[in-house]
């Protein structure tokens, strides 16, 4: 494999790179590529920011949805004291 991998190779391996799961030579090639390629570097930053963005965006709403209230009511009923 070439020392400097292509953009395609880099973008395919970024999660393994971030987890330290790649052999040294490939890791070094990606590290160097990210220093030189602003598009891949931005792509990598985007991938790494995704968990934080997703946690915020997909956080539970303050109020429990109707389906959750129904599930609780069903359980309470099964416990022997139905809710009104």
């Amino acid at each position, binding site marked *: 494999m070439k020392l400097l991998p292509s953009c395609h190779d880099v973008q395919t391996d970024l999660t393994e790179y971030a987890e330290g799961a790649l052999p040294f030579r490939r890791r070094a090639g990606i590290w160097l590529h990210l220093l030189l390629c602003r598009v891949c570097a931005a792509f990598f*930053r985007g991938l790494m920011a995704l968990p934080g*963005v997703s946690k915020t965006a997909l956080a539970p709403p303050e109020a429990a949805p109707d389906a959750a209230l129904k599930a609780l009511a069903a359980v309470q009923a099964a416990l022997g004291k139905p809710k009104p």
Partner: protein
Amino acid sequence: MTDAASSESDLIRRAAAGDSDAFGALVQPHLSLFHNGIHRILGNVADTQDALQDALMSIHRDLPRFEGRSRFSSWGYKVCLNAALMVRRSRVRIHDMERPEPLALGPFDERGHHLETDRRPEWQVEAQAHDLVERQEMRECLARALDELPDSHRIVFVLKDLEDWDTDEIARHLQLAPGTVRQRLHRSRVQLQARLRDHVLGGRP
């Protein structure tokens, strides 16, 4: 012990003794959290409601064994995630039989490098997404994108990036090789990022 903790302990004691009102008062403040955790794994309203009901029954059954070493909400949330994973294991996963879409990368030239690099708008996730994420439309965009992931990929993204499990733990739980977990995680991240990028830069809603 704070008043809140002492009142929670009291609710736990009464709920464990069979008081369903106490059980409702104990669970209600965390119901949205529990429901959300299950729904993110199952991505289906009916399955989520069934799994939540099973989880609440398990929580009630196991209350006498709850020793208060963790917060009730954390313990209950774990029970909910396990219930969701049980349901997931038992249902037919139609999505898993579909061929995965190609990774949304590129376009690249014949050497595998970006085309027209200078003219591509840059995806500044730090600057843009964190601002936009407060908006309802952004939340809906991500929720839709998550729903559209194949079941086998969504579960990996949820456990890794939303629940902070480590890769080996996910691999053990889903009976996959760690490399497969990382591949599925990568595909999920790429697909979600492509949807977010399109949304932020004015592409698909």
